[in-house]
């Protein structure tokens, strides 16, 4: 099977899974935008998704996407290190025009994955996973809340918590670098590129990365300062 055996096939797997994850980021971002304006709207989304079969199915597909992207990153990197030979260059100069991110995609990816562990332990583990185990209430600090009360989770973790906020901002920075190279590189691997579109794709890549990461960052800072939008007392207290 050429997709699994050839170098271009393996890169195509990286490319498609990467683009799929970019689409997911946009989807995730749109949900968070809702939370910045209204905790009530966000909780509506949370209950819409919850642990319903379609949300669980989509989560499995997403997890598969992440696993494939990560496993192939390891396979390709190991092969590439081997292809470099046993003796390393004594002097390495990064040529002008080579982006730093492009040569450090694996490191950036690992940073992103480590933060994902934090993120999942804070949200997914206590929300969808708790619900799948049949819990209708989870402990959140001193309080007990519904696993579908996403707004309460956001307020609990972010509001006034500078450490978590800064950690998330570092995460977005790593993600930004990863996306600035990853997006156009994925397009190039599929073959949709030429001398004219090269600079356009690199520009679009930076725009996509910036839109995603800056919006996530703004929303995170809003959560830190204000918590979720809207009249939170009504939303977050009782449920």
């Amino acid at each position, binding site marked *: 099977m*050429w*997709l699994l*055996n*050839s*170098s*271009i*096939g*393996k*890169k*195509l797997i990286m490319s498609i899974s990467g683009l799929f994850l970019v689409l997911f980021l946009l989807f995730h971002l749109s949900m968070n935008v809702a939370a910045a304006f209204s905790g009530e709207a966000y909780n509506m989304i949370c209950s819409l998704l919850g642990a319903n079969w379609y949300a669980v199915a989509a989560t499995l597909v997403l997890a598969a996407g992440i696993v494939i992207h990560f496993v192939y990153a390891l396979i*390709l990197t190991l*092969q*590439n290190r*081997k*292809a*470099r*030979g*046993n*003796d*390393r*260059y*004594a*002097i*390495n*100069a*990064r*040529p*002008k*025009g*080579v*982006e730093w991110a*492009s*040569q450090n*995609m694996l490191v950036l990816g690992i940073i992103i994955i480590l933060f994902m562990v934090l993120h999942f332990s804070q949200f997914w583990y206590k929300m969808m996973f708790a619900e799948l185990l049949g819990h209708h209430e989870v402990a959140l600090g001193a309080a007990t809340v519904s696993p579908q009360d996403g707004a309460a989770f956001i307020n609990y973790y972010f509001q006034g918590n500078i450490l978590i906020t800064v950690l998330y901002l570092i995460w977005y920075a790593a993600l930004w670098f990863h996306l600035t*190279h990853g997006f*156009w*590189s994925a397009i*190039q*691997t*599929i*073959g*949709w*590129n*030429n*001398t004219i579109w*090269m600079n356009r794709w690199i520009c679009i890549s930076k725009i996509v990365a910036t839109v995603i990461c800056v919006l996530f960052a703004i929303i995170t800072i809003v959560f830190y300062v204000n918590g979720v939008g809207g009249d939170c007392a009504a939303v977050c207290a009782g449920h």
Partner: protein
Amino acid sequence: MDKDINIILKVWRQKGPKEKGQFETYQLKNINQGTSFLEMLDILNEQLINEGKDPVVFDHDCREGICGMCSLYVNGHPHGPATGATTCQLYMRRFNDGETITIEPWRSAGFPVIRDLMVDRYAYDKIIQAGGFVSVNTGGVPDANAIAIPKDDAEMAMDAAACIGCGACAAACKNGSAMLFVSAKVSQLALLPQGKVEAARRAKAMVAKMDELGFGNCTNTRACEMECPKNISVSNIARLNREFISAKLQD
């Protein structure tokens, strides 16, 4: 004005493919900056021979930037600090008095060291032999306008054909990938009507050979393009990906 400069050379010395190599340091005095880099190495070798030592082995041939024989990884750059030029087109006026110049061979699993700075680049020939040609007998030279080719296509094919197969792309690549070379050799034919007929077979065969020879996977860092002495564009790599994927999808 060109001056005479004193330089220190750190040169990779390795007796054979299986031997362990190491750097040796040499002093060179009063090298005129108008000297070419390879002439400077000739002076070094003369000095070494007079001292009764083994001269440094390095590849070179035409010394005018068209044959692709010279290599050398100078101060962290394949073909040295100049852009769009081969090592033989590099002159000592790029370097300052008292400077230490580090000279290494291409380092890539696909290019094993033969001795000192000379590496075995036969792998590129094998990739060409796998399909980098047109296999029909084309007969005599046809009339100039018998086959109309759009100007842009002809230009792009010519730009791709400028590749001299020196191996700087794989040497520059952190992944040891030969994609720029293979893509140039696929593109120069795929862009022209004479080469289109066998385009699918060629892309598959050359990529398969490249993978088999142990070259790495391209991650689009563009280091190859930036270091290429012939300024081959990575848009050729996009074309190769396109050719290869569509050829495989048609199977």
